[in-house]
């Protein structure tokens, strides 16, 4: 067919997750003719809201946002397209003995609440927050730059490296030392420099393990703590928020903006492979045989799909293939979504209140989380897992019918590779472990569950395509960040194949709903145009 070689589009973006959508929107904004292809009927990837049970909207996979780049909101006019991020103001840590640690927007209330466990910690909390502000400010610089290639002698790369070196060496000694500790220590050890009370240590350390197959005592987890503070340093932006309508609301807003900029979006359209001609990407072939040609192809999928499935690995240098094969996915988390007939009643703090509108963290101590990790290390899901729970309907009442509620439980650990049995056999047992754990803190929980959706890493992989169910398209460990994300030499959004780019969470600056990889990739693609 002659028509087959006609280039209808400048650029084809594969995958309609939030980064693919951001990428497509920015490219269209620069005047390119863009086609975006999504295999599912719904856009968003892991950023979707679905009415799994009639009248109840589940923020199925991802559930909160902290780092979504405000410049994307401004550049793409996302507010006009319906984006609204509602504040999540508090974290409640209920304890098995009926006590609780509540940290909210009222400064001295939080101080008093921490002091109930340790007066010293209440005071040290200020120092810790201040130190983390400096750390976030130091690292924030990295989020907005294209990673340089340390092994290259190209002047541009050297300039980038020099700039980075100057930036970090310019920090006051005290801050530089803290930064080194942050990069090397475990979150537990790092936090023990300030704190002594278990509920605070447990809850803070938990943010160092999210999305990794590591425990709070594993070195390198301290760095992930920083992600909890990153949002705050802009001053204007709250650290954590809940998107109105669930995280699908974000995807819908970006999709709407992308369409208004001229992006053609086709959902329920699976790409089977990238068409390569003369060593260059030239288009895509769909699962149904249709071929679409374009000058540039961008994959927002993870490296496994981008390098090993969508193209023939034989077309790539063997060392690149080897690096991608060694890239660590290791999905470690699951998700349990519940439709509830009434408001949950907490044993530690009954009745309605602000505490139900924030995060509720099952993280009574470092030991508790480390034990949960012990189960996972040997190939089992945690019998008593770490759970980060929110009740979206308390924040956005439109998520459930009036008086009813939806509950979103992020659960760790749920290793992708089980030592015994399969996830298909163990799914409900995993769900039971989560509900049993929660019921210890929420006595009325089992009586009010109308519907339960249990998502194991295998389910996450099957539905979204995220390899091994890793929510970040690959672990956010230091060895897989910045110029090593996803691998050395692949960190600048380009690939060994000309006109073939990557823009997903597996590229710098990594996972979470930030939109940053999609945007930075678009800027690089336009540089090459």
């Amino acid at each position, binding site marked *: 067919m002659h028509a087959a070689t006609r280039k209808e589009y400048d650029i084809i973006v594969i995958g309609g997750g939030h980064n693919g959508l951001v990428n497509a929107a920015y490219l269209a904004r620069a005047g390119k003719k863009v086609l975006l292809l999504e295999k599912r009927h719904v856009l968003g990837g892991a950023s979707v809201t679905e009415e799994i049970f009639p009248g109840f909207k589940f923020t199925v996979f991802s559930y909160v946002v902290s780092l979504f780049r*405000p*410049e994307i*909101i*401004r550049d793409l006019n996302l*507010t006009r397209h319906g984006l*609204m991020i*509602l*504040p999540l*103001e508090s974290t409640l840590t209920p304890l098995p003995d009926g006590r609780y640690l509540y940290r*909210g*927007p*009222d*400064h001295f*209330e939080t101080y008093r609440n921490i002091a109930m466990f340790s007066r010293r910690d209440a005071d040290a909390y200020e120092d810790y927050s201040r130190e983390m502000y400096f750390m976030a*400010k130091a690292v*924030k610089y990295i989020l907005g730059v294209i990673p340089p290639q340390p092994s290259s002698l190209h002047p541009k790369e050297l300039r980038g490296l020099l700039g980075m070196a100057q930036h970090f060496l310019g920090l006051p000694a005290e801050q530089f030392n803290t930064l080194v500790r942050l990069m090397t220590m475990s979150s537990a050890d790092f936090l023990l420099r300030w704190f002594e009370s278990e509920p605070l240590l447990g809850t803070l350390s938990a943010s160092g393990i999210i999305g990794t197959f590591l425990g709070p005592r594993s070195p390198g987890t301290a760095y992930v703590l920083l992600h909890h503070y990153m949002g705050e*340093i*802009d*001053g*204007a*932006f*709250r650290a954590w928020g809940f998107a*109105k309508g669930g995280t699908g609301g974000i995807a819908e807003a970006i999709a709407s903006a992308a369409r208004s900029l001229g992006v053609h979006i086709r959902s329920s359209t699976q790409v089977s492979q990238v068409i390569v001609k003369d060593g260059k990407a030239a288009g895509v072939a769909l699962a149904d045989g249709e071929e679409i040609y374009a000058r540039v192809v961008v994959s927002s999928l993870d490296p496994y799909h981008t390098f090993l499935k969508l193209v023939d690995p034989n077309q790539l240098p063997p060392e690149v293939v080897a690096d991608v094969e060694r890239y660590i996915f290791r999905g470690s988390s699951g998700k349990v979504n519940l439709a509830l007939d009434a408001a949950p009643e907490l044993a530690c703090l009954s009745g309605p209140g*602000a505490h139900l*509108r924030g995060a509720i963290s099952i993280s009574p101590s470092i030991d508790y989380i480390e034990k949960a990790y012990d189960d996972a290390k040997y190939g089992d899901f945690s019998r008593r897992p770490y759970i980060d729970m929110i009740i979206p309907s308390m924040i*956005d*009442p*439109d998520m459930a*019918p*009036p*008086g009813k509620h939806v509950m979103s439980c992020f659960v760790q650990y749920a290793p992708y590779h089980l030592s015994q049995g399969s996830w298909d056999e163990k799914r409900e047992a995993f769900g039971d472990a989560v509900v049993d754990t929660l019921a210890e803190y929420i006595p009325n929980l089992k009586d009010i569950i109308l519907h339960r959706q249990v998502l194991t890493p295998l389910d996450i992989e099957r539905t979204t395509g995220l390899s091994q169910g890793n929510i970040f398209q690959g672990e956010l460990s230091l060895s897989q960040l910045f110029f090593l994300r996803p691998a050395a030499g692949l960190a600048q959004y380009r690939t060994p194949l000309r006109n073939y780019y990557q823009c997903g969470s597996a590229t710098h600056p990594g996972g979470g709903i930030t939109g940053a990889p999609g945007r930075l990739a678009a800027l690089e693609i336009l540089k090459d145009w």
Partner: protein
Amino acid sequence: MPIPSPFHPRTSALMESHEWRDWSGYLAASLYEPLHDREYYAIRSSAALIDVSPLFKYEIRGPDAERLLDRIITRDANRCAVGQVLYTPWCDDDGKVIDDGTVTRLATDRFRVTSADPNLAWFQDCAWGMQVEIQDVSAELAALALQGPNARVILQQVIQGIDLQGLKFYRAAPACLGDLPLYVSRTGYTGDLGYELWVAPEGALRLWDALIEHGEGYGITPAGMLALDLARIEAGLVMIQVDYISTRHALIEEQKSSPFEIGLGWAVDMKKKSFVGKRSLQAELARGFTWRLVGVEVDWNSLENIYAQFDLTPRLAGRASRVAAPVYQGGEQIGQMTSHAFSPLLKKYLGIASIKSQHASYGARVSVEVTVEYTRQKAQATLVALPFYNPPRKRA
């Protein structure tokens, strides 16, 4: 000492922050919770309940009621149908704005006027020789604003005797809550879908309780003045004594404004036969007016760069500011930003500004003064049209 409003038993029970302010002699909540964020987001995401009882309210009735209103306001009162609400300024004989408010036609010969300041003397002076009765009903009417995307669905469950779906933007109608009569207008100061409810003080708590009870599942949230102030800036709505000065408070001529200068030119009907100030406004139109009300969008990168000079990151979130900031173009001051705030929704630093009309073109690059570390700096900004935020549901 400010006095409690009819809703005080309920609002004071919610008051965690203990931050009250004086609004026309009444205690008004600045915010109920330690932070105003949630109250603000209720306006945009679910529904906020705001006690607006301190507004001044007047009833004007009699055979000459229409004639009097038509003489006072700059819009055409003859074309105000029963059940219609007009937002309008009114001027002195020099065409300078005295106040702005709403005029609701309750019946052929009966109007209700709301205003920010007392206006009884002015209305009575304008009524000389007319067959009309002007009554200050400020204390006889409690008022609640229910604002936000869920306002309608909540109201539908609480009140009867009214077709809320059919009640268009800037329309009003009587309704009831059981045997309690009230009056509903599709109005507000937020730029969102919303209603204002007018009720006798004796029924105030009953109305509040019913709204809270039925609204809970829809996220109804009592909100204070800080949240309202953010919303009205996003909506580009002016505030008296902040964005303009009433002629009755101005100490020098330069402080006075015509409706054209405060963004209310659209509300001046020059085809009307006459109204107070018309001749002066006609002359001003011919001559050209001095000021124009526009929006200012501060360039975020520029702000970041200014803060970065001090090794700081911008810290601008929080409350709206009513401290005017100078606006410059090419070194010359061309106006001032009179209300400004970081919009949590738009993630932009925005302001309502009065700019000399020859400089006030949309898209013009200007700079605004910001103070960082006690030093005065200039941040880049752009003049834009108001409102900043205008969701379709406002009128839907």
